[in-house]
C-alpha cells in the first residue's frame, strides 16, 4: 500500500454520527480504514472522585446520572453493592420490581438504539417509527416512577415505589402493543433490502477476537458466545425468572440488530412473568447511615453489556473508593478491531453497532477545553453571581 495516499480523518469530538463527544482518529487509504486511535474523556465528569465526597444516600442519584439511557442499571448495581456491604437482603417484592424496571429499561434502551442505527444508515422513517413506539415504554415509566428517564426507583434496602395492582393492566396493554410492533420491525430489518445491504457482513468481529478483546453484551452475543450476567451470575430476582439468552452467529452489524430486537421480545416475556409472579409484601427495609468496612464487586447486565461496580467502604458515611466500569469501555477495543479494513462510509453504522454510551464510559475529572480561547465560568461562580441578585 503506497504510504502517500494515507490521510488522517478525524471523527469527532463533534460529529453528527456521534451523539456524544468522542474522538476517533482514522487513517484512511482511499475509502478503506487502515488504523483507528480512540481518544476518550471528552465527557468525563469526575464521578469516581465525586463518589468519595457524598454520602451513600446521595450517591444513589449520582450513580443514576452516570448515563442518561441505562440509569436504572447503574442504580441497581450500586444499591446491590451497598446492600451486600451492609449484608441487608431486599424484600422479595422489591427484587421482582427491580427485574421489571430493568427489563422495561432494556426495551427502551434497545428501541432507542434501533432508531439511531436506522438514522446512521440514512433510514429516517424507521427512526421516527421506532421512537414513536418507544414512547409507550416511557409513558409506562412515567406512570410507575414519576419520571421518563431517571426513575429513581432503587434505594438502599429495596425500592421506593410499588407497582400497584391498578397499574398492571395498563402495563400489559402497553406490552401487547409493543410486542406486535417489535415483531413488525424484526420482519422489516430482515427483509428490507436497503438495510440488509448496509448491515450484512459489515463490521465483522470473529468470536476469537470477541473473547480476547473482552467484548461484552449484545456485541459478544452477536458473535455467537452465550454469556449473560442475568443467567450466569443472577442478581435481583433473575434466578426465579425464566430467561433464554439470545445469540446469533452472524458476527456482523445485522446480527447485532437481530440480537437486540429479539432481546426486547424476550424482555416482554420476562416482565409478563414477573408481573404475575410478584409476591406481596413490603418493598423496602430500613438501613443505617454508616456502612461497615468492606469491599464488594457488584455486576449487572446493563442493556449494553456487563456493568461492574467495585465499592470499598471505610466505616464512615462516605465510600472510600468507588469504581465504575461501564459496558461501552469494554467494547471499545473490539470496536477498533471491527473498524479496521472497513469503508469510511461504514464507520457510523459500525460505531453505532456497539451502542456506545460515552456518558457512561467517562466518569472522571473536569470538563476540559480543547480550544484555549474560550473562557468558562465554573458552576459556583455562576450561582454566586446571579443567584444573589
Amino acid at each position, binding site marked *: 500500500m503506497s504510504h502517500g495516499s494515507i490521510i488522517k480523518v478525524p471523527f469527532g469530538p463533534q460529529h453528527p454520527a456521534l451523539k456524544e463527544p468522542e474522538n476517533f482518529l482514522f487513517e484512511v487509504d482511499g475509502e478503506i480504514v487502515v488504523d483507528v486511535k480512540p481518544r476518550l474523556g471528552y465527557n468525563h465528569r469526575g464521578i469516581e472522585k465525586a463518589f468519595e465526597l*457524598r*454520602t451513600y*444516600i*446521595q*450517591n*444513589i*442519584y*449520582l450513580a*443514576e*446520572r452516570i448515563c442518561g439511557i441505562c440509569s436504572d442499571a447503574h442504580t441497581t448495581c450500586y444499591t446491590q453493592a451497598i446492600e451486600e456491604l451492609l449484608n441487608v437482603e431486599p424484600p422479595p417484592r422489591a427484587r421482582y420490581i427491580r427485574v421489571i424496571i430493568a427489563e422495561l429499561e432494556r426495551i427502551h434502551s434497545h428501541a432507542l438504539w434501533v432508531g439511531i442505527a436506522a438514522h446512521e444508515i440514512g433510514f429516517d*422513517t*424507521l427512526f421516527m*417509527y421506532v421512537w*414513536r413506539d418507544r*414512547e409507550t415504554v416511557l*409513558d409506562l415509566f*412515567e*406512570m410507575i416512577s*414519576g*419520571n421518563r428517564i*431517571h426513575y*429513581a426507583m432503587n434505594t438502599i434496602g429495596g425500592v*421506593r*415505589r410499588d407497582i400497584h395492582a391498578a397499574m398492571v393492566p395498563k402495563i400489559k396493554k402497553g406490552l401487547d402493543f409493543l410486542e406486535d410492533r417489535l415483531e*413488525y420491525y424484526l*420482519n*422489516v430489518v430482515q*427483509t*428490507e433490502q436497503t438495510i440488509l445491504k448496509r448491515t450484512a457482513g459489515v463490521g465483522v468481529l470473529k468470536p476469537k477476537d470477541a473473547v480476547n478483546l473482552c467484548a461484552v453484551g449484545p456485541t459478544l452475543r452477536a458473535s455467537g458466545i452465550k454469556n449473560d450476567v442475568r443467567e450466569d451470575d443472577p442478581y435481583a430476582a433473575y434466578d426465579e425468572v425464566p430467561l433464554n439468552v439470545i445469540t446469533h452467529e452472524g458476527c456482523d452489524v445485522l446480527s447485532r440488530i437481530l440480537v437486540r430486537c429479539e432481546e426486547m421480545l424476550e424482555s416482554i416475556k420476562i416482565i409478563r412473568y414477573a408481573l404475575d409472579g410478584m409476591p406481596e409484601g413490603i418493598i423496602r427495609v430500613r438501613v443505617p447511615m454508616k456502612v461497615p468496612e468492606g469491599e464488594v464487586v457488584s455486576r449487572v447486565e446493563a442493556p449494553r453489556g456487563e456493568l461492574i461496580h467495585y465499592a470499598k467502604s471505610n466505616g464512615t458515611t462516605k465510600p472510600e473508593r468507588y469504581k465504575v466500569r461501564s459496558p461501552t469501555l469494554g467494547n471499545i477495543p473490539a470496536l477498533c478491531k471491527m473498524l479496521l479494513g472497513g469503508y469510511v462510509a461504514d464507520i457510523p453504522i459500525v460505531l453505532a453497532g456497539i451502542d456506545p454510551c460515552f456518558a457512561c464510559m467517562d466518569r472522571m475529572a473536569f470538563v476540559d477545553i480543547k480550544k484555549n480561547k474560550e473562557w468558562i465560568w465554573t458552576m459556583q461562580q455562576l*450561582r454566586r453571581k*446571579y*443567584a444573589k*441578585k
Partner: protein
Amino acid sequence: MAFLKEALKQLLRRPATLKYPYEKLTVPKDFRGRPIWDMKKCIGCALCFNVCPSGAIEMIGKGLEAEINHYVDRCMFCGQCAEICPENAIRMSEEYELADFDRSKMLHEYKKHS
C-alpha cells in the same frame, strides 16, 4: 416493498407528535415535578438540606424561624427531600415547565409567615 405499505398507511393516521405550546400532555398522578414547601408544617430540621444530592436547598436561620431558598436550576427532582421530610411538608408538584430567561426566577424563596 413491505415498508411502502406501512408508510402509506401512516398518511391516514393522525400524526403522533404534539403541537406543543397549544396542546399539552396531561402528566400522570404522582409525577415528580418541582418540590413545594409548606412552611406551616416545616419545623426547620434541615434534613432536606443535608440530603439534597445537588445542593439545591439552602436554609436561612434555624429551627422554627428557618426559611428555605430552593434553586430550581440546581434541583434534579429526585424526590429525596420529599421522602425524608418527617412532617411531609414537601410535596412534588406537577410543574415541569420551569425554563426561564432570567436565572433569578430560578430561585424560589419560602418565607415563614407569608
